[in-house]
């Protein structure tokens, strides 16, 4: 398939899902996301518990082989069986043979993503066993013959009306179902019967305790309890990564998982079963005999699934995925996921940001390829993850590996000179966006011609066809005079040369070639507040290639930036950054690209421009030299800026200066760097942007202000109005 046809197929799939599932997904997912924020607001222990949970998982994965053996001893000492399955086929064989041995006709299940990974239902059905999902959400997708659209809420893509229509069609009740109560009542009774007659109960496990052979199951409905305790035989299926030592180590997870998953303080049932359990057997065929009086005996099998996990454990980058407790917070906090859901943002089994790690690990790299680009690296999931997994990084690494597998295009010559080819073959589209700095340099040198050319219809349709640049998206307009040109030409060249505060301002590619005014405003503001300002060399930070999964190129950029800044840092300069995504590079991603010492130094000495303004004022600079408020503002901060927690400084400075402003609280504007420029994702990015548009719908008389470049470009398209950086709003007049 040609690259353009492939992009059109993707765009079509996304368009269909936006139309059919988008509304229900958005309502349910944003609800859970808000509930998470609400419950965590009053939960002071959150950060400490995350640290603790992370440490426990790191240790457990480190000691995994030993934990498996301890668990085996515990389970066997309890009278159960432990089977360590190499892969899905091995696990399914064990389970179907067990069902045959038990002469099982029916099996009831509680929700388990690991059994979805195995496709054990299909294997059991083939072996002649009727399988029933007892979690209501799983029951819905089972009836609809669909895959789950969310790790926690498999049927979140269906509204009540959808479910009612489905149930009415399948079960043909005398009175059609209408309300959630009626549907729930029916499902409860229907599944209750299935549970009572089942020969085997199958559950997953959220956690498994090695010291005692206890499995922890976290549910709201009570179906896992019922499925585990009603049939005599209980089979639990769990990935090997679920093992932790004991109840003490379980505690932080009990406190965290429901809060980050659904925004509940704690789920209804945290079942900690040490099977075979003490509860008496229940023989519904002899209803008036006391429980446990039949000749049935409890039997327990724990099927531990490897299926690629041992290899993940040995993979420096995918290893972190094994810390995942599958709470779905990464999906809920993701702008793209909120709009399109797991049927687009997901692979064969798993959904959301962390799915890339799981799919690449258990199903192979290709399984992650279809949806990996939907992670824009906005990083809103980073603080949401209860075990501190760097989910954007996992997505970047997988993207890098996928790049390496793509076949070279016959149109390579179109982007010749754009990549130092460190990554080998990379799609033309990714090479184009990954080399924004080179483009910008040429675009600026040939402006305004370059700007006129890219406005031409035929040029845009060629760009769409060969490079995957969305034809409807306005492209950046390059300035002939760059920030560096302006800075070098101005007089006097070094005001405040003997000032205490010395700043090296980082001219990111956008500020240098496109949004030059915000660069000038930054220089004026910092100098007015008494700092001595110099400009660093205009070297792209590596953000652009990194966002395309071109890690080796990003590394080269990072090293050049570090080399350029080193003498300034030696001389006591502070680095000030205008573009939040580049600040995030220095603070976060450089940790992966540079040696620890270099990263730490850059990270500790780099500041968001408004953060720095705040600091100068706090340290005695006179805010009276800055501009007075001339209009009320509507301010949209930047996703990565919020992850770093520095957006508060912009708000503080605006407040100090007496501005009347409102702020947005969407997770991401939807543009996310190059994402919204790409032909196949243009519509999704506009759909995500719809949230921001709605939030500022009644703010027509406010000046629009945004911290990030891509937010600025996106908002300019969304509102058809000018958008400026906060620094331009506070900068003193020329």
């Amino acid at each position, binding site marked *: 398939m040609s690259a353009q046809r492939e992009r059109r197929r993707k765009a079509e799939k996304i368009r269909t899902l936006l139309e059919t599932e988008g509304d229900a997904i958005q309502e349910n997912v944003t609800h859970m996301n808000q509930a998470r924020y609400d419950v965590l607001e009053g939960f002071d222990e959150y950060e400490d518990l995350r640290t603790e949970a992370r440490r426990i998982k790191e240790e457990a994965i480190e000691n995994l082989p030993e934990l498996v053996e301890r668990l085996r001893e515990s389970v066997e000492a309890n009278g159960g069986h432990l089977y360590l399955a190499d892969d899905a086929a091995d696990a399914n064989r064990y389970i179907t043979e067990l069902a045959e041995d038990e002469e099982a006709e029916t099996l009831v299940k509680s929700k388990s993503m690991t059994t979805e990974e195995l496709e054990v239902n299909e294997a059991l059905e083939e072996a002649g066993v009727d399988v029933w999902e007892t979690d*209501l959400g799983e029951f819905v997708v089972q009836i609809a013959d669909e895959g789950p659209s969310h790790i926690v809420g498999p049927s979140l893509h269906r509204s009540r009306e959808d479910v009612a229509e489905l149930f009415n069609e399948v079960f043909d009740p005398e009175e059609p179902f209408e309300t959630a109560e009626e549907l*729930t009542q029916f499902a409860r009774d229907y599944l209750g019967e299935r*549970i009572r007659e089942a020969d085997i109960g199958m559950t997953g496990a959220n956690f498994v*305790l090695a010291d005692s052979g206890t499995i922890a199951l976290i549910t709201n409905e009570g179906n896992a309890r019922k499925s585990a*305790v009603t049939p005599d035989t209980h089979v639990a299926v769990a990935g090997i990564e679920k093992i932790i030592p004991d109840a003490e180590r379980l505690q932080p997870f009990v406190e965290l998982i429901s809060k980050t998953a659904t925004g509940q303080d704690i789920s209804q049932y945290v079942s900690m079963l040490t099977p075979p359990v003490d509860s*008496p057997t*229940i023989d519904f065929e002899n209803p008036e005999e006391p429980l446990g009086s039949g000749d049935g005996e409890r039997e327990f099998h724990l099927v531990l699934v490897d299926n690629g996990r041992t290899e993940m454990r040995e993979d420096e980058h995918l290893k972190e995925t094994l810390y995942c407790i599958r709470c779905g917070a990464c999906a809920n906090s993701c702008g793209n996921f909120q709009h399109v859901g797991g049927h687009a943002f997901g692979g064969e089994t798993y959904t959301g940001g962390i799915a890339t790690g799981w799919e690449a690990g258990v199903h192979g790299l290709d399984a992650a390829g279809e949806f990996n680009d939907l992670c824009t690296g906005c990083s809103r999931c980073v603080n949401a993850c209860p075990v501190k997994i760097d989910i954007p990084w996992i997505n970047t690494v997988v993207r890098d590996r996928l790049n390496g597998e793509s076949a070279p295009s016959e149109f390579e010559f179109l982007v010749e000179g754009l990549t130092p080819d460190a990554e080998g073959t990379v799609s033309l589209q990714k090479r184009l966006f990954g080399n924004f700095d080179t483009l910008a340099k040429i675009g600026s040198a040939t402006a305004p011609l370059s700007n006129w050319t890219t406005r031409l219809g035929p040029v845009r349709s060629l760009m769409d066809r060969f490079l995957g640049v969305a034809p409807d998206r306005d492209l950046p307009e390059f300035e002939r005079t760059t920030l560096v040109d302006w800075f070098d030409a101005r007089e006097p060249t070094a005001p405040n040369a003997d000032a205490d505060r010395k700043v090296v301002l980082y001219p990111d590619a956008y500020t240098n070639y496109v949004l030059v005014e915000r660069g000038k405003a930054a220089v004026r503001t910092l100098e007015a507040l008494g700092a001595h300002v110099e400009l660093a060399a205009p070297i792209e930070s590596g953000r652009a290639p990194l966002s395309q999964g071109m890690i080796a190129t990003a590394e080269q950029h990072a090293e050049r930036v570090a080399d350029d800044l080193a003498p300034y840092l030696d001389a006591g300069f502070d680095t000030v950054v205008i573009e939040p995504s580049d600040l995030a590079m220095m603070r976060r991603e450089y940790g992966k690209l540079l040696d620890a010492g270099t990263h730490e130094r850059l990270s500790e000495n780099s500041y968001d421009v408004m953060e720095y303004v705040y600091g100068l004022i706090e340290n005695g600079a006179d805010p009276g030299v800055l501009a007075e408020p001339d209009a009320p503002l509507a301010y949209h901060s930047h996703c990565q800026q919020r992850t770093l927690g520095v957006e508060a400084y912009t708000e503080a400075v605006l407040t100090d200066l007496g501005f009347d402003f409102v702020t947005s609280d969407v997770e991401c504007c939807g543009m996310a760097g190059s994402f919204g420029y790409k032909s196949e994702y243009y519509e999704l990015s506009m759909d995500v942007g719809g949230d921001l548009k709605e939030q500022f719908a009644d703010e027509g008389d406010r000046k629009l202000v945004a911290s990030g470049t891509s937010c600025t470009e996106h908002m300019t398209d969304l509102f058809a109005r000018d958008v400026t950086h906060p620094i331009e709003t506070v900068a003193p007049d020329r």
Partner: protein
Amino acid sequence: MAGTAVSTFEASLDELNVGLTRTESEGFADALSAVVEEPAVGVPLEGYEGISLDDTAVETPPTPGLLERAETGVTPVGKAIAEYGSVVVDSDAAGTEPVSLYCPTHVAVLRESDVLADVTDATGYLDDRFAAGGSSVIATGVSSTGDMGALVEGVHGPKHVHVILLTDQ
């Protein structure tokens, strides 16, 4: 400390809409009959002093038929966790787990001295139980689901929970 935990527990139950009756052992039978809807099934309250399900409307021992028929299931609970308003349902051979789960109403009988402040305080108790092969469920409020498009209470587990707190034990 115990006093603080108990008042926190009561406040948490209130937030969860879980009913609470405080009673001394002597008033247990009256307290029970006020909250039990018949037919009712129960697990004998062994280990508690001076109270019993004998001579109450609650039938023992549990049978599969009673699990299906009964409106109310009465069980002892091992501990409570004040912070979340949870009761710790300990599995046993008498059938506490299914009786607490199958009936539309679960009445949990709890000693005031068993109220713990938080999950951390319960880990020692749980580890001891697990080491001995025991199982427990931290149950908080009533069974619920949002999977049918709105929050509905009473799914596979109870729709109502009521705690009888024995203030003198």
